[in-house]
């Protein structure tokens, strides 16, 4: 965990609502796949937690959806401007359990955290397949980027306007060794029911601090109470307790 001033070097829309922002600083360490950063914005009290899309030493890329005042403000920022960012937050995905042919399941803005994961799994010699789910064709992003890594990619849209008609769970391949997923809770619950193997889920929750101090994002698990920001956001399938 570090508090750093990062410089925006790119901030462009990739769909009507999703932007890609690249942030740089010489002393920025490579971020974990499945980890997140917490961004301070002028005039807003709480930071905005955003998952890591891609990262290497000195550079971090995030993909964020414009949904409210904070992300609207981010979308209006230009290269050269700086942000106060807490980096290195969250536990991230555990790559050691992937097996030979891991499956990645992303829904909407749950897609970005899977990109760096795919990159590292492929670098480790894994045969990776990604199923990316969206509501409609206009919202699709990431297909080419995942393909360029050497990933097999299936896109599903809920309205059938592009790729497979349905949800990510309607487009599961027959065989996979393990899975990693991130997306809206309804999707995560469907994946939990449909998956044939063990896997890891990345959760979203409203946070106060993002670094474990306030207990704002606690959840109950089989193995006790956990903070989504600290012991999460990634939980193993076997420890999840869904609250109804």
């Amino acid at each position, binding site marked *: *965990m570090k*508090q750093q001033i990062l410089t925006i070097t790119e901030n462009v829309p990739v769909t009507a609502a999703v932007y890609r922002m690249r942030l740089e600083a010489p002393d920025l360490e490579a971020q974990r796949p499945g980890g997140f950063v917490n961004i*301070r914005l002028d005039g*807003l*009290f*709480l*930071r905005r937690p955003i998952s890591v899309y891609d990262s290497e030493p000195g550079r971090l890329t995030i993909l964020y959806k414009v949904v409210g005042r904070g992300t609207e403000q981010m979308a209006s920022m230009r290269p050269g401007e700086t942000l106060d960012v*807490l980096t290195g937050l969250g536990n991230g995905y555990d790559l050691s359990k992937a097996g030979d042919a891991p499956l990645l399941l992303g829904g909407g803005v749950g897609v970005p955290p899977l990109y760096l994961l795919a990159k590292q799994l492929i670098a480790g010699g894994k045969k990776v397949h990604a199923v990316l789910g969206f509501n409609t064709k206009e919202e699709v992003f990431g297909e080419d980027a995942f393909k360029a890594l050497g990933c097999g990619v299936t896109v599903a849209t809920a309205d059938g306007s592009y790729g497979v008609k349905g949800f990510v769970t309607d487009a599961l391949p027959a065989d996979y060794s393990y899975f990693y997923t991130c997306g809206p809770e309804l999707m995560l619950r469907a994946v939990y029911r449909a998956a044939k193997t063990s896997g890891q889920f990345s959760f979203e*929750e*409203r*946070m*106060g*601090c993002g*670094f*474990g*101090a*306030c*207990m*704002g*994002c*606690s*959840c*109950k698990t089989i193995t006790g*109470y956990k903070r989504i920001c600290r012991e999460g956001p990634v939980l193993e399938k076997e420890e999840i307790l869904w*609250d109804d």
Partner: protein
Amino acid sequence: MGRLTTSLCGIGLDNPVIPASGTFGFGYEFAQWYDINCLGTFSFKGTTKDPRFGNPTPRIAECPAGMINAVGLQNPGVDKVIAEELPKLKEVFRKPVMANVSGFSAEDYAYTCEKLDREEQVGWLEVNISCPNVHGGGMSFGTDPKAAAEVTAAVKKVTAKPVIMKLSPNVTDITAIAKACEDAGADGVSLINTLQGMRIDLRTRKPVIRNVMGGVSGPAVFPVALRMVWQVSRAVKIPVVGMGGVTTAEDVLEMMMAGACAVEVGAANLADPCACKRIIEDLPAAMDKYGIKTLEELGGK
């Protein structure tokens, strides 16, 4: 004596800055951001007799110049706090610490305080009779002078350590509660806890916080807090710890001018993990700017 030194109920503080309970855990999360021995002290996470998970999520909402929380006193219970948290706290913090205690009956409060009284590192007991996020306890003791006095007396019976009653702003006349605590033997009061508030999500048309209401904190509440610290300081003779929206060194000075002898910092720690370190470092320059030689001269008790 340094420029920043002050004292709280007879115990010296290197400076008046105290992270507030519920925003600082048991210290060790923040020790990863800076050496927390620069603090005057800190008030650790609200501790109850039994373990508590707290409220369902979402527990957090943002508001103009602040935030709302409805955590609901999540803590592992006093026995685990003593067995597991305090040893970890001791590794990162050398000074006397403020133990924050909550409960659901006067007996509850006394039980937890008696156990924490035996802990050497505990310098003060801050008794929270003002948590807005639990039912049948917390704030219900802090909104009635008789109940506030009852809890104060019950706690005073089981400890020789200074007892600071943490007061709720969600009352008609906070000075009446403060006086009741003083009359029942309190060694000090701290104020304010959070103000009750809520937000509604325009998209879902439902409250953002699952518990509907929560406690508002952050710069938004500072003027309200300052007003109450001013009023209580003039109504009681015991020390007053000021808190509520303090974010800068200037805010600390203002609180002390209102009558506080020490100042707690809450929500600011969540927005900026190094907030208290920054405030302490900024104090000398802020004092210079306003011609303040020592904090003692501001006259907080």
